[in-house]
């Protein structure tokens, strides 16, 4: 972080103020989420710490607020601020996990498709075409629905994150595969790859040691933009009730809980997590958009 803050580097990056602010905001939210264990006033996953007598207390800055609970409490007397910090951590972890999984699968298949071409290439790309013709949310819902039918314990706090990660990644890997495939085809035609082929290196080594480093640039840019989309998808699934359980809530689960109380005028349970989610995604989107335009103006990622 120290190197980022030095004025020289800021000048070199040359980002507009809005992008710097967005990056700062993203860092603050991610930081609070990662350090939730130390920063949060209460432990929202420990059922013994909350009492029903504290339920539905409005935020501290309103007339009926309680200074112990800065942003109020939820329906079970859980401190909302702590729940949000832990929730953001869950959301970011699942979003990050999905991006990581999608990027790994996508890069792997993209390398194979681009390097070997022919039938393997056609097969991988046609599967990708079919997947992309369905919206992310529909596929993700199908995957979690099937998982629930196959394993009864799919909805528990231990298994839900894994299923969410798979459900999101099943749609997102195609983008990486397409990008990496195109880049690999370009690289494979270059002289240095021809040279290592002549030496007789095995294909696996050529792909991993020689081609891969040269195609990673666009992958990192796509990953940034996808992180925002993955966090949103996770929130949507949790909101719909097929994501994280209320005992171990993500931001989406908190909004789902809050949604049931909106009608009785208890607005804070839904609104604060929603605001956090929007700010986080907005910040990551601003940074991602800027990265995309800066590093690869030709790369246009489909929303």
């Amino acid at each position, binding site marked *: 972080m120290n190197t980022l803050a030095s004025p020289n580097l800021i000048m070199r990056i040359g980002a507009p103020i809005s992008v710097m602010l967005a990056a700062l905001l993203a860092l603050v939210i991610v930081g609070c989420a990662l350090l939730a264990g130390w920063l949060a006033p209460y432990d929202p996953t420990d059922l013994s710490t909350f009492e029903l007598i504290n339920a539905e207390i409005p935020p501290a800055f309103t007339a009926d607020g309680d200074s112990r609970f800065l942003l109020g409490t939820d329906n079970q007397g859980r401190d909302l601020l702590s729940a949000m910090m832990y929730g953001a951590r869950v959301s970011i972890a699942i979003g990050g996990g999905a991006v990581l999984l999608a990027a790994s699968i996508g890069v792997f298949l993209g390398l194979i498709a681009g390097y070997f071409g022919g039938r393997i290439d056609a097969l991988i790309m046609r599967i990708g075409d*079919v997947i992309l*013709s*369905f*919206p992310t*949310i*529909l596929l993700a*819902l*199908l995957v*979690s*629905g*099937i998982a*629930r*039918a*196959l394993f009864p314990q799919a909805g528990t706090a231990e298994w839900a994150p894994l299923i969410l990660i798979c459900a999101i990644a099943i749609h997102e890997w195609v983008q990486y595969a397409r990008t990496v495939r195109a880049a690999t085809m370009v690289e494979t035609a270059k002289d240095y790859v021809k040279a290592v082929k002549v030496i007789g290196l095995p294909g696996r080594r050529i792909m991993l040691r020689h081609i891969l480093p040269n195609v990673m640039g666009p992958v990192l840019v796509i990953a940034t933009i996808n992180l*925002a989309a993955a966090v*949103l998808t996770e*929130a*949507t699934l949790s*909101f*719909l*009730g*097929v994501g994280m359980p209320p005992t171990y809530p993500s931001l989406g689960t908190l*909004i789902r809980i*809050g*949604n049931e109380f*909106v*009608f009785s*005028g208890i*607005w804070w349970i*839904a*609104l604060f997590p*929603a605001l956090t*989610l*929007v700010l986080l*995604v*907005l910040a990551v*989107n*601003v940074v991602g*958009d800027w990265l995309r335009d800066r590093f690869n103006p030709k790369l246009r990622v489909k*929303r």
Partner: protein
Amino acid sequence: MFKVILSRIGQAALVMLVVSAVSFVMFRYVGDPVASMSRENAPIEEKQALRRSLGLDQSFVVQYGGFLKRTLSGDLGISYRNQRPVTELIAERLPATMELVIVATFLSLALGIPLGVLCALRPSGAAARLVQAVSLIGISTPTFVTGIVLILVFAVTLGWLPSFGRGQVVEIGWWSTGFLTWSGLKSLILPGITLALYQLTLIMRLVRSEMIDVLSTDYIRFAKARGLPMRYIHFRLALRNALMPVITVTGLQIGSLIAFAIVTETVFQWPGMGLLFIQAVSFADIPVMAAYLLFVGLLFVIINTIVDILYAVVDPRLRARSA
């Protein structure tokens, strides 16, 4: 021309075959129908007899053929949860979703096209920059948050509009419509706006970039040089050409809107197909899930095929190239 239509329909049939196969695999292999239908501790012989009588011991292809035949005759099985035929459930829910999607598409076009034109004509003006900034926030705001905020403001605080359900509906044959009653129309407003916002940004950005492209072409420059009135140039000459891709994208987006209506319908408890599907997912109601997949897949394919064919009809260049 005829050839183009035929090949498009052939492609569509192929995709539907794949989707129906996936749906069949879900239907048949996720969970064991014999286990859920036979009594507990049934002897193996009894289970095997049941298996035979259901035709589950036959080869994959034969079973799949049977599934296709039943599907084509409108039999999609019985919901585990409601114990009613799935076809009936979907037919009952279809009008609610379709009306919501129609309203959302109309709203997003009615707002998106003027805003996109505005941004293209004065790209550095204050209004355009405001619209751009708001659209970035729009992309980053999930549909359910928009819906909750709208409910909080217009239903809970102001009390102007209903926040859930369809209001009073009128039955026309098997189609139930909310367009004909005052409460039905009022109920459509908030969910319609919520769903429309999802694609408003997309349409606005598309109109803007297409319009900017068209405005820099030679024929527009010549029209300006000839001294034609600016309004005529912008709206009669430029906008018409810029709208071609917008029509395509709007058509293609109808499929995504139907899928995305799942979220909107959950927020507003809108009794459409999306709500049916999400309930099926949480209860692992496989027949409903498989049928929904099949149905949405069919809609996607029909829409894509119609858009493709329309394109060939409207744009003679495309026809010449592929025929």
